[in-house]
């Protein structure tokens, strides 16, 4: 006994740490939801901008690491919105009320810790009018939305899709988004599995991120509401490599469809391992897996895999998007968009600029005063705004994309670089938040 007590101690601590980390995924349950919109108009003060000073807008996106493509695409969308302030894409930013716009870009790393660091840095700068971001729900939920909300700084996201962010329980009063709510995406996945695949049994896999948890939960609820059975709702660790044990145990429940909306690394592995273990089961995933890397890594295993994603063909049909926006994007950044959310961030930026124009008080010396609460209220009052992504009408809980079109794409015909043509969805449906559970 006396030889190696420290090993026991180390092992105990490690086990407890793992238990703690497994439990910490439950529900961040931020203490938000207070009715600060009813509070006094200038509860959070006013941003004063000197006559020759720029208007500072924060940007919190993931611009490094594995998910950088998601954030960089949105930064590009935001820069195009700046460019278009003068009504044309000419690579020279326009002005708002006679002031330049200056972006303060922070990296949120697609993690809660990164979201905290970025939000803290931006919240410390009193000249920041609003923040465009975050890229990932994990960086916003209970972190970015709370830290900025406490300072009365609007956080406006073009790609957060986790349902909790705009739920009654967790919504922070200064949080809004132009991205779709995954309650809609989950419902359309369930609808596709039930009606188009004729499935009666569904199994789901999620990882530790709020994005995947929100999607699988929404899909499972809607699937059961359609008289389907959910045979398993398994959790994995996104850094694992051997998913065969969990897949093998899911296979015992004999599902018709496996829905695993995890991110690229785990997704490619699951696709490959599922082909071996459950060749007859239809695999579905979502936009987190939709990437050229998945096609490269998983090879033939992507064939017949159904991915749900915002149906960009809807806004690609718009003349402005295809004739002006897209060429300008390619001119300025030298490549085609790497995700769909540049459009959502372009819209968010323009809605924010419109709101600034509405509420800013222009003083005689050319300086501006922007009251924070009024700015937030103006954004939340947006109704019937015609954006790139469709009509934008914000709800009280900050969901501004109300009618969302989700497409289902059959692999390898995915709308990404390296996917086969035609990359049109095999199924597409539009729903609003009232239609779904």
């Amino acid at each position, binding site marked *: 006994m006396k030889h190696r007590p420290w090993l026991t101690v180390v092992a105990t601590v490690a086990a407890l740490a793992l238990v703690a980390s497994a439990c910490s995924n439950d529900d961040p349950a931020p203490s938000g939801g207070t009715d600060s919109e009813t509070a006094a108009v200038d509860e959070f003060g006013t941003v004063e901008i000197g006559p020759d000073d720029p208007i500072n807008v924060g940007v919190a996106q993931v611009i490094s690491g594995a998910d950088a493509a998601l954030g960089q695409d949105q930064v590009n969308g935001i820069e195009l919105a700046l460019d278009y302030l003068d009504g044309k894409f000419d690579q020279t930013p326009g002005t708002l009320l006679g002031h330049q716009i200056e972006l303060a870009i922070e990296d949120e790393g697609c993690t809660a810790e990164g979201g905290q660091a970025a939000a803290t840095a931006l919240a410390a700068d009193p000249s920041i009018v609003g923040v465009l971001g975050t890229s990932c729900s994990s960086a916003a939920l209970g972190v970015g939305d709370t830290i900025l909300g406490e300072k009365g700084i609007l956080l406006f996201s073009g790609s957060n899709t986790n349902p909790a962010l705009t739920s009654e329980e967790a919504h922070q009063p200064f949080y809004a988004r132009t991205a779709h709510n995954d309650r809609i995406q989950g419902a359309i996945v369930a609808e596709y599995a039930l009606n188009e695949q004729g499935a009666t049994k569904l199994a789901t896999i999620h990882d530790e991120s709020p994005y995947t948890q929100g999607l699988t939960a929404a899909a499972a609820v809607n699937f059961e509401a359609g008289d389907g059975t959910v045979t398993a709702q398994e959790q994995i660790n996104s850094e694992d490599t051997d998913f065969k*044990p969990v897949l093998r145990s899911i296979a015992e429940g004999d599902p018709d469809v496996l829905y695993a909306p995890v991110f690229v690394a785990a997704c490619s592995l699951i696709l490959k391992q599922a082909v071996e273990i459950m060749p007859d089961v239809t695999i579905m995933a979502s936009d987190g897996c939709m990437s050229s890397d998945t096609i490269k890594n998983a090879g033939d295993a992507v064939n017949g895999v159904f991915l749900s994603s915002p149906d960009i063909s809807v806004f690609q049909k718009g003349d402005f998007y295809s004739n002006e926006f897209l060429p300008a994007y390619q001119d300025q950044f030298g490549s085609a968009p790497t995700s769909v959310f540049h459009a959502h961030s372009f819209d968010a930026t323009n809605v924010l600029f419109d709101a600034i124009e509405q509420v800013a008080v222009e003083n005689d010396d050319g300086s501006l005063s922007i009251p924070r609460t009024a700015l937030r209220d103006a954004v939340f009052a947006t109704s019937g705004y015609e954006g790139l992504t469709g009509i934008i009408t914000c709800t009280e809980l900050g969901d501004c994309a109300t009618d969302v079109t989700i497409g289902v794409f059959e692999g390898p015909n995915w709308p990404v670089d390296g996917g086969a043509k035609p990359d049109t969805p095999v199924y597409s449906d539009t729903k609003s938040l009232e239609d779904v559970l």
Partner: protein
Amino acid sequence: MSSSGSAQPVDARLSGFATLPWRRIILVVLGATIAFVVIAGAYKTLTLPGDERFSGDFWVDQIVNGLGQGAILALIALGYTLVYGILRMINFAHGEVFMAGAFISFFFADAYVKSGFLNSNTYLALTILLIVSIAGSTLVAVLLERIAYRRLRNAPRLVPLITAIGASLFIQSAFRGFFGPQPRGYPLPTLLEGSVVLAGISVAKVQLLVFITAIVAMVALQLFVNRSRTGRSMRAVAADSEIASLMGINVDRVVVITFIVGGILAGIAGLLFALAFTQVVFTMGFRPGIAAFTAAVLGGIGSIGGAALGGFVIGLLQAVGPSLFLKGFGVPSENSLRDVFVFLVLILVLVFRPGGLLGTGDAEKV
């Protein structure tokens, strides 16, 4: 733990803690609780009502998979145990040594599959990949020893431990910096696709290759350590490095050879891992590294047979454990708890056999 001088202060501090009576009581109660969970859970799982019970095929598949995973873990665990046996230090960067081999061989594999060489000359290509992977891992292991550890050999124990963690982070960041953060698909030769039926059990060809290669490597290591002249010096240094050096053994050389052997095994494991999971990424060394370290401790750190046994036990526990012991209690998403489960079993073993399964406390090293 050890008889070497540098370990004394740590032992002395902890032995006061060890003699407190409640410690043993708590550990025994903890052990009994875990043992109860294991036995009751297995009973409940195996007696679940018909439609919920797992099929026989299920258990066979999980065991085959667990053995394949265990073989890779065993190879990595041998690297931990060899270095511990010789230097009494835990080389936490060993997971990165493993990653380096797999990652570097990826570039060759990718080129070979594009030129068609991988499928036209599969055996030759796999041999080259094996050599590249071994070379990559060995190079990183030797550089680690030379740059990060050699000067600290007589420093207090915690110093090389912290250095090892730093080296681990450094190697990960370096690979991310050089080669990018995205996961890359490792090509699998068509010859290795599909499965074969052995004694009525369907086994993926890759799993079979993994298993056989790992066993051959372990037997070779055993022969090397027990029969060769160099192996004898390794055992001598493990027993007492000062006396060994007085007897004319070049300790520096033995330490380098130990790192080379550990690197070779990690390189083999890296290639097998890449073929089994067909994906490499700069973070891939971390989790297998932790699991393999656990395996080395479980088997009795410093013991070669123990590391091999520990690897297989951990591999099997990860594959079978959650379903067998937790399903019966109706634990939701039991597979996500597999690491917790592995550590619980580790605690159980260490409570009753502090030296690990095959370790005897301090007698057997390398």
